[in-house]
Structure formats: structure tokens, C-alpha cells
């Protein structure tokens, strides 16, 4: 029982990070129909930047974290401006190809600068585990979870109540109509990429604190793919719920199935689930096929 709960809690924490990274992915998809396959590299680079600031430049973690966020927002915006903007009326496939190219490019840079060795963050969070009855949680998990939840709530409020959120929803709904009311679609794209890169950095920093950083961290970009497809690709709530689901299922797989069936299953299981669910619900769990009048 304790083991099960332990697995689920780990799953919830990792899943919350998936949810956050998936959110950035979904926002870009909703705004422009582009699948950002360089999302994992945003995570990786964010994680490395913060690590470098903390470990090499000895900057206190909280400032390093904030600087990383600024860096990643700029990175996301530059990518939008230089790579995506020229493709604004191009077919979706061209955009996807461009993000694949971008992901190789960014991964290449990351390897050139930081190499392939796994590097660990200096301990940022207290290391004494927190006991809750039978369950033991390490503070880094708890803090990660809290930070993600705060981010998600902040985002929810911004999205629902701010002028920017309104513009983002309008552009996702109908680009031409959004332009007609005076929303600059280009600016919304720019901000959306900045934001997606920002949440990716948060994910990267948290994952880095949990597991350390190396090139394989970018595979989260792939893990997030089944998450968003499961959620319905254009559904924000779907991405968040599916993020948690995939995190939990992955950890249960690692805890119960891998000892029997062998390693690696954890990485494959999200794709298996997605395939099964899409057979039953082709629009994903929360996908909308347009509003129908009743």
C-alpha cells in the first residue's frame, strides 16, 4: 500500500511537470496550428542555463531561476520571430519540419556547450524527507509540485480574465476575426512562444533538481506528445489532466511492470495508452470538434 501511494505521488509530481510543459505545447497549437517539436530542447536548455548560473556563477537559486525564465522567454520569442514568422502562411507541414530542424539545432548547441555527462544541481531544497504517515516525500518533489500548481493557477487566471488571455483565446478561435477586432495576431504568436518556452524552462529546472540534467531530458518533448494528443491537442484542461495521468501511469509501470517485463516500458507506455484511447475517442479525452448549436 505504501509503495503504491509512493508511486502515485511520484507520478503526480512528474505528471504535473508534464502538464506544464504540455500547456506550452497546446497553446502554440491552438494559436497557430503548429506542433512545436523543439519543445523538449526548450526544457533542456532552460535546465542547463539555470544549472550553469547556480553552479558556475554561484548565483542564488531564486535569482538564477528568474534569469532563466527571462532567458527562455527571449529564446522562445527569437525562435518565433526568426524561424516561424516567415512561415506564417505556409502549410502546417513546413512549420512542423522547421521545428524539427530547430530541435536538432538547439540540441546540437546544448551538446556543444554542456556535453553529454549528467550534471546535478547543487542541493537547492532541503534534503530531509517529509513524512506523512506511511509516505515519505522528498522536499524537491513537494516544492516542484507547489511551483507547478502556482504556475497553472496563475496561468488559468491570466487566460480567463486578462486582456492578453482574451486575445489568445480569440486568436485560437478565429484568426481572421481576431485581426478584424484589432488584435495583432503576430504579437499573440510571439507572446505564446515566449510563454511556452518559459513553462518549458520551469519544467526543465524542476526535473533537473529531481534527476539531474543531461541530453536525454529533451525526450520530455516526445513524452509530452502523447500527453497532448491524449488531452485532445487543442484542450488546455485536457493537456493538464492527461499530464497527470501519464505521469502516474508511467510511474506505476516503472514500479510494478518493469520489474516483471523489463526496463524501458515506462517510456513506451504513454504511446500505448494514447493508441488505445484514440481508438475509442478519436478527438482525445477533451478534444472539441467545434461547437454545435443544440
Amino acid at each position: 500500500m505504501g509503495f503504491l501511494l509512493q508511486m502515485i505521488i511520484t507520478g503526480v509530481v512528474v505528471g504535473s511537470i508534464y502538464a506544464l510543459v504540455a500547456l506550452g505545447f497546446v497553446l502554440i497549437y491552438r494559436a497557430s496550428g503548429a506542433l512545436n517539436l523543439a519543445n523538449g530542447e526548450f526544457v533542456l536548455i532552460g535546465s542547463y542555463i539555470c544549472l550553469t548560473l547556480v553552479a558556475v556563477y554561484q548565483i542564488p537559486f531564486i535569482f538564477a531561476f528568474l534569469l532563466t525564465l527571462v532567458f527562455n522567454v527571449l529564446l522562445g520569442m527569437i525562435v518565433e520571430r526568426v524561424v516561424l514568422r516567415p512561415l506564417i502562411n505556409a502549410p502546417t507541414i513546413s512549420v512542423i519540419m522547421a521545428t524539427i530542424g530547430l530541435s536538432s539545432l538547439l540540441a546540437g548547441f546544448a551538446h556543444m556547450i554542456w556535453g553529454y555527462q549528467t550534471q546535478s544541481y547543487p542541493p537547492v531544497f532541503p534534503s530531509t524527507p517529509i513524512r506523512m504517515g506511511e509516505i515519505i516525500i522528498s522536499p524537491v518533489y513537494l516544492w516542484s509540485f507547489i511551483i507547478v500548481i502556482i504556475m497553472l493557477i496563475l496561468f488559468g487566471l491570466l487566460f480567463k480574465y486578462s486582456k492578453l488571455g482574451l486575445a489568445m483565446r480569440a486568436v485560437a478561435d478565429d484568426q481572421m476575426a481576431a485581426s478584424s477586432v484589432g488584435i495583432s495576431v503576430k504579437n499573440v504568436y510571439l507572446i505564446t512562444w515566449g510563454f511556452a518556452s518559459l513553462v518549458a524552462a520551469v519544467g526543465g529546472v524542476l526535473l533537473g533538481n529531481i534527476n539531474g540534467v543531461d541530453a536525454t531530458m529533451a525526450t520530455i518533448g516526445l513524452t509530452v506528445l502523447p500527453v497532448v494528443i491524449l488531452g485532445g491537442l487543442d484542450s488546455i484542461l485536457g493537456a493538464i489532466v492527461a499530464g497527470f495521468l501519464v505521469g502516474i501511469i508511467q510511474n506505476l509501470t516503472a514500479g510494478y511492470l518493469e520489474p516483471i517485463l523489463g526496463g524501458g516500458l515506462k517510456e513506451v507506455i504513454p504511446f500505448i495508452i494514447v493508441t488505445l484511447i484514440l481508438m475509442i475517442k478519436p478527438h482525445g479525452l477533451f478534444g472539441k470538434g467545434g461547437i454545435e448549436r443544440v
Partner: protein
Amino acid sequence: MLRINNVEVVYNKSILAIRGVSLEVPDGKIVALLGSNGAGKSTTLKAISGLLKQEGGAITEGTIEFEKEQIHGMDPDKIVEKGIFQCIEGRRVFTHLTVEENLLTGAYTRKDRKNIPDDIERVYHYFPKLKMLRKKLSGLLSGGEQQMLAIGRGIMARPKILLLDEPSLGIAPLLVKEIFENIKQINTEEGTSILVVEQNANIALSIADYAYVLENGRIVMQGSVDKLLSDESVKAAYLGFDKKEKGDIREVKSYKKIKRFV
């Protein structure tokens, strides 16, 4: 005053949509731009509002002047800020946003944010039905209600001129009459100039001061509504022409007749 001078529009560098189109919308007036499907009416409006670029269209000749300033080439958001607001064809409300959120998008470029709640009330004054629907997702509204919302979104921008693209499209005849009365009322009470594009000439002329007729991308006729309405050949050719099928032979004949007449 909005003045379009000798404008030519080409789509995808190959399709000539309108040519030599000149028209004027004086302050406070309602001007109708009539013509059958494919005549180039929407293209003319998009040339003014700057939405053309997003559709692969470009103004290849001519000028567009609003209050003595060249607006040709500006981005659509800048043009909205100048006071020109286009209600695009087919209503195009944001279906996943509520009625009130849709109205808020109309006020997107406004700097005087504190007046927005009052303006929402003003929209409800013109369209009381919308008030009851304010929390409802716009995708669930009827066509007529969506058209009211689309115009309401325009009011929220407090434009100097509203460009309306076929407000009667796909709406029950009784509601069409009501909506055109609302348009007239907005013009009188807000002093907003209006350029209304229609295939339904009858209804548009019922509120307009001046009208232009567009055929195959060219203005083939223009005049004050009184003058047009008193002309028998115009009546025969245009009032009710929306009932005919596109490509109807009679339409082509009438087109020639009109050309001689002009």
C-alpha cells in the same frame, strides 16, 4: 471622410479581383455597396481594413485615405485604432467565448478602458436580446443573434466608420429588417459613418444615403438613393436582383443595359 481612389486588388499575384474602384463615405452618412456574389465587395472592404494581406491579396494600384491620411499598407490593428472597424462576412463571432467576452474583444484597441462597462450597456441598449445571452457561449446563438453580436463587437470599438459585410447573409427576413433598423439607429445615435455591403439591394437602400453598384470588380453605377430609387431601369435591374441565380443570363443583359445607361 473615407476616400478610396482608383484601387486595384490582386490575389496571389494572379487573380484580379477589383479594378479602378473609387468611392467615398462622408462623415455621418450611410453608403451602400451593392453587387452580386463575387463582384468584389468583400475585397473592397478588406482593402480598406487591411485584412487583405492575410488572404494573400494586395493593393496593386490606387490610394485609400481616411481623414486625409493614407492608411493603405497599415496593419489591421493600426487601422482599427484609427477608427475603422470591419464586421467581416459571415458574422465570425468567437464561438468559444461568451457573448460578453466577444464584446470585450471589440474593445481590444481602446485606451479608455474605464468606459468599457458603459459601452457594453450601450450595446445591450441596441440589442436587448444580447443582454439575456451575455454569459452564453456565442457558438450556441442563432444566426441573427450572432449578427447582432458581430455588430455589437463593432460598437465596442467606438469606430468612426463601420464597414459591414453582408449583415443580411443567412438570416431570417424578419430579423434582417430589425438588424437594418438597428444599423440606422447606431448611425443616428452614435454618429458612426457606415459602409454597408449587400446583395440584398432593397434592404440596404432602405437605410442608405448613397449607393454604388459593383460588378465584376468595377463600379458600374452610383448615385444618391433617392435618385437611384426613382429610376425605373435601376429598379428593374437591381431591386430584387438578389433573387436571381449567379450567372443568370438576364443578369448579364441587365449589366449591359446599365452600362449604357451610365
